[in-house]
């Protein structure tokens, strides 16, 4: 149960059921759709870019607790960041969940998203945690 409990923590469960980031954006400047065909998780990110800055970010869609929590947390930590900062954080997050080497410093830099570190112990679920971040990466690369 170790891995399990370290994964389904209160933070993650709370975020997985939180709704404050889950809505459409009236003045979105762009959006991107992400999908995990094998499990059916499906999200759409909407963004408002203000020059180089992510001035608002929200999502709609459905999926498991992990993917929903990961999406909501990602929105929390990336909102207000510049495109470059965000891309850097995304790359650190993706390394972290894939168990590649990341420094303490790097982990600090992704703020609350660190809460998802233990997902790397459950390979079956890494994809769930990654979905939002890969989708966000695509979205930023277009912008």
């Amino acid at each position, binding site marked *: 149960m170790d891995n399990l409990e370290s994964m389904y923590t209160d933070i993650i*469960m709370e975020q997985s059921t939180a709704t404050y980031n889950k809505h459409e954006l009236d003045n979105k400047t762009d959006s991107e759709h992400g999908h995990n065909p094998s*499990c059916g998780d499906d999200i759409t990110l909407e963004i408002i870019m203000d020059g180089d800055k992510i001035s608002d970010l929200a999502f709609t869609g459905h999926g498991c607790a*992990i993917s929903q929590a990961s999406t909501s947390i990602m929105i929390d930590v990336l909102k207000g960041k510049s495109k470059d900062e965000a891309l850097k954080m995304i790359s650190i997050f993706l390394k972290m969940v894939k168990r590649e080497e990341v420094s303490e410093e790097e982990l600090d830099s992704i703020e609350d998203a660190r809460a998802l570190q233990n997902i790397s112990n459950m390979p079956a*679920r890494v994809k769930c945690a990654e979905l939002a971040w890969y989708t966000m990466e695509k979205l930023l690369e277009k912008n």
Partner: protein
Amino acid sequence: MTNYEIRKDFPIFDGDKIAYLDSGATTQRPKQVIEAVDNFYRTANANPHRGAYELSIEATNIYENARKKVASFINSPSPEQIIFTRNSSESLNLIAYSYGLNNLKKDDKIVISIMEHHSNLVPWQFVSKKCGCLLEYMYVNEEGLLTDEEIEKKIVPGVKIVGITQISNVLGTINDVKKIVKKAHEVGAIVVVDGAQSVPHIKTDVQDLDCDFLVFSGHKMLSPLGIGVLYGKKELLNKMDPFLFGGDMIEYVYEQETTFAPLPAKFEAGTQNVGGAVGLAAAIDYINSIGMDTIKEIEEELTKYLFDELSKLDFVTIYGPKDLSKKAGVISFNINGVHPHDVASVLDSVGVCVRSGNHCAQPLLRSMDIDSTVRASLYMYNTKEDIDKLINGLNKTYDMFKKWIKK
């Protein structure tokens, strides 16, 4: 033999660490199958059909004997009506390309059930687009059953192909294929039966069903991966164009023209998976040594137990037939308010292997207005203890998640 005795033949259960409830995806293999393949590669391996030496003849005989074994397993009138493929998906594509594309015309109809696996659905979308014909669906009722009215309504003159799974890989629904075949033949349609979930579990007799094509996968019936079967009526197979071209399926090859070999070689291009066929033959021997009746009894008892125990959990919704005489050992369900993927992870942590997702049947799930389910599927080596582990795991999952579940 009891399931407890059978279980001992499966090396993966040594030490009884896992409750494997995902045989609908792929089964485990008994040591008899693993050893048969191993032995083939150690002693009899050669390219069949092509050599002029004993070893190669031996490989040819082994391969053709496997074909005979498959033929008699499903009561095919002759072995050459058994084509070896890679899996059910390839068998279905062979039919779609070689029969479908060449026989369907604009405005012809293809009818399939909404519960088809993507492998018996997407190829028909391809055919209908290429030929300009219509793809229509037979829908299921609330219990996941095809009603007689629906069958009568959809299988009408103008329909040229009917695709139907004998057992749904999501709901476990057992379809009355014989009735559907009869109806289809009345309107002049041919019937493609997807036996991926049925042939391993219930005695299947192609002559009794009178189906035109039947496909199944070895890996869902104790065999190695990489070997599948296509059965077809002889006059259809004879009339069809070849699908894959290459070595061993030809007669004369000139620079601009080729004539093709007779059945079954016509449909088997290139070096075939003799090791896979050896494994499938060993699997059929194993199944016959247990007996299809015994297998059915074991599964029926376990299905009832699983269904009853699940029904006792008031936080669980079960999908599909409630009448167990119409349901095979495949049960989809959800813990209300908890995503199936999370359920599967908790179950995994207690050694229970189930599948979660859309089970390659998105249109069915969409028609039921759900995204995904948890699926437990059974085979002859499962036990009540496996099911008890599942039920315990579900209780644990519910306990973990209940305070977060939104009503």
